[in-house]
C-alpha cells in the first residue's frame, strides 16, 4: 500500500511538473499583461510538432531539437504579442481574451494542416526502467522531472537575479512606476512572451515524449494550466510551481484510487474548493479578490 502511494506520488509529480511548466508561462504573461493567453496550449503543441519534425526529418538529436523548437516558439510568441495582443493593450480585458480564442483556432488548425491529424510520439530512446524498493521509475519520467526542475530553476534565476528579470517584476508590481523609472514596457512584454512561449514549447515536447501529441490535446493542457493558476494564485510564480504539483498529484491519486473517467472532474472540484476557502490562491497572502 505504501509502495502504491509512493508510486502514484511519483507519477503525479511527473505530470505535475509538466503542468507547472505550462502554468509558469501563463502566469508570467498574466502577471505582466493581464492577458489570459488561451493560445498557450496550441503554441506548446506546435513546439512538440516542430521538435518531432527536427528529429524525424532533419535528423537532429533530441536536445538540440528541443532547444531549436524553444527558440522557434519564442519567436512565435513575440510575433503573437506584436501582431495580435499589442493593438488591444488598452481595450477591456475581454477583447484580449477573444483575441486569444481566435489565435487558438488559427494555431490549432495550422498545426493540423502542417503536421496532419495522426498522433505523434516524440522518440527519445529512454526505455530503461529503474526499480527502487518496489517503486517503478521509468527513465523517461525521471528525466522529465529533471528537465522540468532545471527549467524552473533557470526561470527563477532569470527572474530574480538578472536586470531583465527585475524589470519584469517591476512591471508586474506597478506598471506606471516602472514606466517612470525608464523601463521599456514594450520590450518587457516581448521578453515575457518569448520566455513563456519557450517554456510552453518545452512542456509540449515533454507531453509528446510522455504521452502523445494530437489535435485536441492543447485544449486540455491549457485548461489544466489555468486550473493551476487558480490553485496557486494568478500571476504568482511560486503558486504555479506548488499548484502544478498539487494538481498533478491529486489527479493521479484520483484516477488511481477513485475513478479514472472522472479524474478531471475531481481536479476541477479541487479548484472550486480552493476558490471557496481561499479565493486568492494557495500561495498568495494578500486578498486581491
Amino acid at each position, binding site marked *: 500500500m505504501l509502495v502504491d502511494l509512493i508510486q502514484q506520488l511519483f507519477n503525479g509529480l511527473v505530470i505535475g511538473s509538466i503542468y507547472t511548466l505550462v502554468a509558469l508561462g501563463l502566469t508570467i504573461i*498574466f502577471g505582466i499583461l*493581464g492577458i*489570459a493567453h488561451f493560445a498557450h496550449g496550441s503554441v506548446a503543441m506546435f513546439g512538440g510538432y516542430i521538435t518531432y519534425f527536427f528529429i524525424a526529418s532533419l535528423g537532429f538529436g533530441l536536445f538540440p531539437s528541443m532547444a531549436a523548437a524553444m527558440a522557434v516558439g519564442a519567436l512565435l510568441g513575440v510575433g503573437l504579442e506584436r501582431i*495580435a495582443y499589442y*493593438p*488591444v493593450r488598452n*481595450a477591456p*480585458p*475581454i*477583447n484580449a*481574451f*477573444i*483575441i486569444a*480564442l*481566435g*489565435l*487558438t*483556432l*488559427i494555431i*490549432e*488548425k*495550422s498545426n*493540423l*494542416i502542417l503536421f496532419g491529424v495522426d498522433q505523434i510520439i516524440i522518440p527519445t530512446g529512454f526505455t530503461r526502467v529503474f526499480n527502487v524498493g518496489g517503486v517503478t521509475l521509468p527513465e523517461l519520467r525521471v528525466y522529465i522531472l529533471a528537465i522540468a526542475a532545471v527549467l524552473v530553476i533557470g526561470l527563477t534565476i532569470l527572474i530574480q537575479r538578472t536586470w531583465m528579470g527585475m524589470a519584469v517584476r517591476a512591471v508586474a508590481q506597478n506598471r506606471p512606476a516602472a514606466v517612470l523609472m525608464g523601463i521599456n514596457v514594450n520590450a518587457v512584454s516581448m521578453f515575457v512572451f518569448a520566455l513563456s512561449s519557450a517554456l510552453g514549447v518545452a512542456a509540449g515536447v515533454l507531453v509528446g515524449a510522455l504521452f502523445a501529441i494530437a489535435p485536441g490535446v492543447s*485544449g486540455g493542457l491549457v*485548461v489544466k494550466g*489555468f*486550473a493551476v*493558476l*487558480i490553485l496557486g494564485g*494568478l500571476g504568482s510564480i511560486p503558486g504555479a510551481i506548488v499548484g502544478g504539483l498539487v494538481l498533478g498529484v491529486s489527479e493521479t491519486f484520483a484516477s488511481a484510487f477513485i475513478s479514472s*473517467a*472522472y479524474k*478531471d*472532474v475531481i481536479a*476541477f*472540484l479541487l*479548484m*472550486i474548493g480552493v*476558490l*471557496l476557502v481561499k*479565493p486568492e490562491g494557495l500561495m498568495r497572502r494578500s486578498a486581491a*479578490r
Partner: protein
Amino acid sequence: MSRIVLLAAVAAAALAFPHLVTANYFIHLAVLAIIWMIVAQGTNVIQGYTGYVSIAQGGFMGIGAYSSALLSLDAGFPVWIAMLVAPLATAVAAIIAGYPSLRVKGHYFAIVTLAMNMVIFIVLVNWIPVTGGEAGTSGIPAPEPISIGGLEISFERRVNYYYLVLVALALVMLLVTAVVRSRVGLVLQAIRQNETFAEAAGVACWRYKLFSFVFSASLAGFAGALYAHYLSFISPAPFSVDHSLNAILAVILGGSGTLAGPLVGAALTTALPEMLRIAETFRLIIYGVGLVLVVIFLPRGLVPWVADLVGRFAGRRKDAGAENR
C-alpha cells in the same frame, strides 16, 4: 419611429422567410440560428450587461437538452411540460454552480466557468446509463401537435418548428428587454461599470450577479430543450466548451450589451461557417483571423458600428438625427 419600422420589417421578413426560401436546408439553418440566438442572448445578459464572461453556456444548454429529452423519453412527461421544466432544471444547476464561482471576479470567473463546462461535458460522456454516453440519446419526440380552430399543427414538419422557435425567440426577447430595462437591469449595468462603487452604494451585488448568471443559464437551457426536440437526437458533442466560446463570439461580433447584437452575431456565426465551406480546417483558420480582426478594428461589435454609420449619414442630412438612435 424608424426603429419601429425596422423592427416591423425584420419581423415580417422572419415570418415570410420559410415561404420565400423553400429549400429545407436553409430552413434547417434558420432554426439552428434562432436557437443559437437564444443562447447568445443569454450570454449577453451575463457578459454584455453584467460584465462577467461565462464560458459555461454550452454546458447549460446541454443540461437543458438532456433534462428535457430524458423527462419526455424516460419519465413520460408531455413534451411541452418537459420543455418548460428544462430551464428550471438548468436554473437549479446554475444556482449550485454559480454560488461558489461568483465569489471571484474577472479572469478567475471565466476560468471557473470553463472548468464547469468541462465537468458537465465529462459527466454527459461518462454517465452512460442515463445519458447514453458518446453514442447519445435518440428518438426524442417532437412536441405534441396542437390544433387551432380545427387546424392541426404538427411540429414534425420543419416549417412549423421554425415558427415555434421564432415565437420562443420573440418571448425571450421580450423577457430580456423587460429585465434589462427594469431596475434589476440598471443594477446589472452598474455592476459592469464599477462593482466596487455599486457595492458602496448599498447594492447587494452578489444577489444580482447570481440572478444574472442563473437567468442566462436558464435561457441556454431553454434553447437546449428546443434543440433536443428539433433534432430528436442529442450527443454530448454540441455542448462542449467550443460552443460556449461560439456563443461568446456571437455576442462580441454582434455587439455586447446591445439587444440586437447577439441576434446578428448568432446569425453570422451560424451562417458564416456554412458559407466558408472550402475545407473544414481552412474555414476555421479564416474564422480565427476574422475574429482577431473584428476585435482589433471593431471592438464594440457590428451593430453599434452600423448604428454609428447610419447615425452619421442621417446626421449629415438632418442635423437633429443624433438623438433618435
